[in-house]
């Protein structure tokens, strides 16, 4: 049900009945390691190529999510997935073994919440009994496709972000137990002329801010209505800019806890190689489906807004000197029995 300009309100409040997160070794060293369902001890994920490794992460996470949801593969109505690879080969190839009707989506790092919003919409509207949303990213596939070979010795600036290795999947259903999805705000493309692919936080911050403000406007809510608001992966630079812009707009973000998945997943003091923080479409997926769902289930958090951000560039577009169009999608989550 559309409310305001760009927000869906899910009347039936579909539940995330099962979710799973699978990550690589570096995320396993981070502060959220205890919230992940499986941590691989090698970056190769026991595979021969980086692309296969990324696919395996998604296959593993999807299989675990089905187990956690307590449903069979055949029961799954739809799988909605995406990733950062050209032609979204990770999600598509994983969908081969998931074997459910499949919708491929691309929103760069915002794919996590884009797919979750669509899954919730399908479940709420009666379009799916069980819909699974899933995304994955691998540090080395992304380095290979977007930047330099992984072993190439180039110095990365402090604004650069580190693509996380991990996959997250969530099964959404109208009936069943689990944290509820109440709203989704679909973002507009924002492009403020940032061209530097090593400063994606600055490129994405306006998109995050625009979606947040639109969400508040459409729902009549404010920061105080949420116990936690997390942006997808703006990391240290982008998150600081977003905070600054919101403050200038008069949005009182100090009334809530305002954090960022890219900052939460790594310990930046110890894991200095991540520079500004994490990124990649697995980033907001594993933080949301791991850490945040856990806290909603434990009732440590009541209501959370996840604003996943995506930088929609391609290696071609930045080589041709184009600026980076960005987007952000927000999904509001609640613990099972509303505190209202």
């Amino acid at each position: 049900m559309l409310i305001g300009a760009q927000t869906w309100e899910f009347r039936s409040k579909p539940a995330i009945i099962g979710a799973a997160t699978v990550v690589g070794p570096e995320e396993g060293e981070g502060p959220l390691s205890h919230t992940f369902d499986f941590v691989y001890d090698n970056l190769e994920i026991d595979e021969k190529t980086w692309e296969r490794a990324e696919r395996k992460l998604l296959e593993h996470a999807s299989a675990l999510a089905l187990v956690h949801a307590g449903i069979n593969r055949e029961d799954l109505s739809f799988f909605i997935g995406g990733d950062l690879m050209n032609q979204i080969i990770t999600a598509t190839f994983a969908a081969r073994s998931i074997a459910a009707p499949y919708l491929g989506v691309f929103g760069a790092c915002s794919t996590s919440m884009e797919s979750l919003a669509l899954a919730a919409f399908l479940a709420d509207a009666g379009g799916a009994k069980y819909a699974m949303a899933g995304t994955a990213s691998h540090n080395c596939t992304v380095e290979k496709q977007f930047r330099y070979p992984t072993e190439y010795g180039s110095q990365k600036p402090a604004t650069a972000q580190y693509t996380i290795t991990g996959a997250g999947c969530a099964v959404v259903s109208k009936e069943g137990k689990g944290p509820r999805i109440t709203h989704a705000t679909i973002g507009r493309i924002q492009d403020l002329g940032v061209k530097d692919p090593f400063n994606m936080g600055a490129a994405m911050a306006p998109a995050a801010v625009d979606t947040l403000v639109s969400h508040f406007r459409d729902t009549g809510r404010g920061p105080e209505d949420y116990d936690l608001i997390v942006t997808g992966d703006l990391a240290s630079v982008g998150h600081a800019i977003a905070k600054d812009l919101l403050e200038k707009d008069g949005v009182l973000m100090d009334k809530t806890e305002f954090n960022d998945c890219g900052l939460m997943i790594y310990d930046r003091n110890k894991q200095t190689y991540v520079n500004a923080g994490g990124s990649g479409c697995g980033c907001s997926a594993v933080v949301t489906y791991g850490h945040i769902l856990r806290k909603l289930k434990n009732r440590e958090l009541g209501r959370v807004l996840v604003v996943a951000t995506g930088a929609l560039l391609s290696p071609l577009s930045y080589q041709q000197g184009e600026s980076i169009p960005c987007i952000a999608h927000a999904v509001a989550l609640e613990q099972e029995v509303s505190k209202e």
Partner: protein
Amino acid sequence: MPAKAKNKPGARVKLNNLLLTEEEYQQVADQHKPKTNVLRNCVRAFLVGGFICFIGQCIQQLFMTFADMSAREAASPTVAILILISVVLTSFGVYDKIAQWAGAGTAVPVTGFANSMCSSAIESRAEGLVLGVGANMFKLAGSVIVFGVVAAFIVGVIHVIFGLGGVH
């Protein structure tokens, strides 16, 4: 409509009370950008680059002392050994970590060139020997060769025209 950035929809931040143009946003973004420590980078590049050259000098000296070579004869095997060291370090995943610290210090010497080829070759191995390694090995190093040849040509032309001195 001309494809001017200002005409792009969304080329401004428009919130409830805030309106920023592209230029104004750039200023906000720059305030939050961590400063690059150029001096520190230069010192590190100098130290690491110099150290690599020092190692090269030692290898050359060894060839001259123990293999009875002239400085000129020893140059080629010295470069070959430096390349080998760089390739081994790249293959073990160490070179890129040193480079993050050293910056241009590891990029400029011959070891950086070897690293760019070796890393491209390793990365493309999954796509096969011909379409992968063969086609991509010079992905990064190719432009060094192209512009090296172009620069040499221009210098050669100048040399011929003006009859300037040089090594014959």
